[in-house]
């Protein structure tokens, strides 16, 4: 039994040592907002925060996370979808199919945590998430809009 801090709550959960955080979140904690896209940390659909830093949870063993570390998923980014990135995303209608967007939003929110003044160039360099619908242009605009709401 391991103890994790997820979205501000303490949860005790059992999992095999090699289970990636993604599958603990999705299958054992019912937090299905984080998505499986590739399983090899290539697409970013599984992005969550550990202590505010974006990580790709599909290759991050849950057993490597200590009790002190704070895990935040898309469900915990805000209580009501009011995080500046979420607000910007709604305003610009960023998502198309939307499957990659929880990961995209968490990646962007993580970037803005460490770099609140992120430019388009920063976004291009740091956000390597895959979106097959092709929302990139609105993602770029969304980052700049979110900055104004922080």
């Amino acid at each position, binding site marked *: 039994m391991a103890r994790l801090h997820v979205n501000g709550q303490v*949860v*005790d*959960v*059992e*999992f*095999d040592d*090699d*289970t*990636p955080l993604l*599958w*603990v979140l*999705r*299958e*054992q*904690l*019912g937090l*299905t*907002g984080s*998505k*499986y*896209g*590739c*399983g*090899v940390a*290539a*697409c970013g*659909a599984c992005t969550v925060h550990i202590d505010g830093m974006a990580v790709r949870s599909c290759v991050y063993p849950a057993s490597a996370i200590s009790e002190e570390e704070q895990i935040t*998923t*898309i*469900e915990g*980014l805000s209580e009501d*979808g009011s995080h500046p990135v*979420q607000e910007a*995303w*709604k305003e610009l*209608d*960023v*998502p*198309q*199919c*939307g*499957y*990659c*967007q*929880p990961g995209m*939003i968490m990646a962007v929110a993580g970037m803005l945590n460490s770099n609140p003044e992120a430019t388009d160039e920063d976004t*291009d*360099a740091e*956000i*390597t*998430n*895959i979106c*097959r*619908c*092709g*929302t*990139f*242009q*609105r993602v*770029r605009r969304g980052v700049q809009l979110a900055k104004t709401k922080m």
Partner: protein
Amino acid sequence: MTNSISLSRRGFLVSSGAAGLTISFLAGCAGADDNTPAAADLPPNPEVNAWVHIGRDDVVTIRIARSEMGQGTLTGLAQLVAEEIEADWDKVVTEYPTPGENLARNRVWRDFSTGGSQGIRSSHQYVREGAAAARMMMVQAAANEWGVPVGECSVSKGVITHGPSGNELTFGAVAEAASQLEAPSDITLKDPSTWTIVGQPVARLDTADKVTGAQQYGADIVLDGMLLASIKAAPVRNATVASFDASAVEGMPGVVKVMQVGDDAVAVIADTWWRANKALEALPIEWAGGDRFNSADFEAELDEGLTADEAAIGNQGGDVDIAFAEAAQIVEATYNLPFQSHAPMEPMNATALYTEERCEVWCPTQNGEAALAAASRASGLPISQCDVYKQLLGGGFGRRGMSDYVAQAVLIAKEMPGTPIKLQWSREEDQRQGFYHPTTKARVRGALDENGNLTGVNIRISGQSILAGIMPQAIVGGIDIATFQGLASPDNPRTADQSLKYTFPNFRMEHAMRNPPVRPGFWRGVNANQNAIYLECLMDELAVAAGRDPLEFRLAHLQDSPKSAAVLQAVADRSGWGSDDGKHRGLCAFYSFGSYTAACAEVTVDENGQLKIDRIVAATDPGHAVNPQQIEAQVEGSFVYGLSAMLYGNVNFVDGEVQETNFDTYNVMRLSEMPEVETIVMPSGGFWGGVGEPTIAVAAPAVLNAIYAATGNRVRELPLNYRNLREA
């Protein structure tokens, strides 16, 4: 079923997975709540008709038959309905009827299939008529209530008003009475000039839950007592399972069952998907037979097709042989394009629950009725005892028009009656078990006279027929007419919306069908994607050979298609085509899926031959533009899809096995490669063209032509893979 559709099965209760927390919530539909205090004591309103339910709380629930996969059809179709019923857009929600309900009601919602950019263009008429009928019935019901002539009543934003008295009734108050009335037979649709919702850049109806993680996809479904399955089908086409050693993994944590699925697949069922997939990866499986296809070797067969005596002729005019015989100059080139995988972000999945009496499936599908048929076949139950609950798709791009994964889920569930089974493919399985966009080559030729006038065009495509692979009944006289998308004749009703818009004095479009043992599929944009490269790069090569401006050269042959000329001129004007600013630009115009599209790309190629796509100006004329901001989104996204293919897309088969099994080897475009796309939506009205696909065709040719402008080198083999473009 005369009342509101039962939501009990698709608004599923969610409970715990294998261990840990228990969460439950009801993913319901606001439209059926009828929960305002005043309405609390009354039974819910019946539907007005198949297209519209209006609650006593005035919430308008619009039934959407087509599948939403990101393209925005759900919002666009809802706009069409809301427009004709004169709804208050702020009170509109949507729901999917099920394919089973459609069959039970004599297909009242008609076709569920969602592909070919058909969502709106092939259903707008009957969808709007259904909505208009609902409005007329509600106005009639209000007039009856007041005992006044219908002609004295007007309707706006969900409120019916009797002019002389000023009396008002909301839709919610008359919906029940309206539902009892005969449907009108004489329906007049609104004139487009009076539209207030259609044509507006309204926000999508499905965004809010997509930014909070609340949006449920097929992959997210949890049912009580559900088990998880991971599957591996033969990695080589037409191979079968020879044997597998279940005992090697049966003792692994969480594993419940190891089973063969059909002739060619093995699945592991466990309490979590992670455990199921881990056991599957450890499971020894032996395969037998199969086609040990090598895509590298197949090039020789494609080359043979380029000059073979026999070829289907899809479209021709004049005498192209004389044109070439008498030409002062001939331009000839060979283009070579590889296999592509759809690679939607959500790998294939389906959840099935089988009992001896009933089979139910929850799945993302572009073709709900085909999924239902697949569930019936796989379960062995009559179709009336099956149903499919469609989920929002995490991408489709044509892949989810197929139902192979649905049948697999049902075959597994059938072995475990009463236990819901969620089958989730790994990304690797998704890449290996595709219906791939075919590889083709083309020999493109153009004839010029001594004055640089184009006298003949001949395109010989050599490659796989998609229809021969998956819809052989659509092959007529040995010709796959879809192969000629964008090059086809306007006189054939099957190809009028995919026809050649240039006027050439002499031309012949040919296809030498060469079918490899690879499953082909409709891949967003389909054959327009390669045909636009073949035609529009040839036009660029010809313009250069003729010493003419590529814009002027194209416009000179678009005299019979002013709409094509208009989109091309629009991108040229906006981009600064012809200006002396040192930028390198390339053009493309193409017509497909009933819409006129054009692009101008601006690129930089550095001294090391590295490409940067700086800017795209794109124009589209889809006739009626239902939601301009969503059209812009589709145009922007089309460049990501089309340029991903141009830059990276390539599926190689070695000894029958796909080599690119994940995004680390099947690379796609990222943000840093995304050019700024300026979209010009220029609806000329009077027709309904597609939006989701047609722009993809113009993406690669515009960039390839710009690369030529920058370097003097032609790229004729894709993917580009950032090779040195300074090397010829």
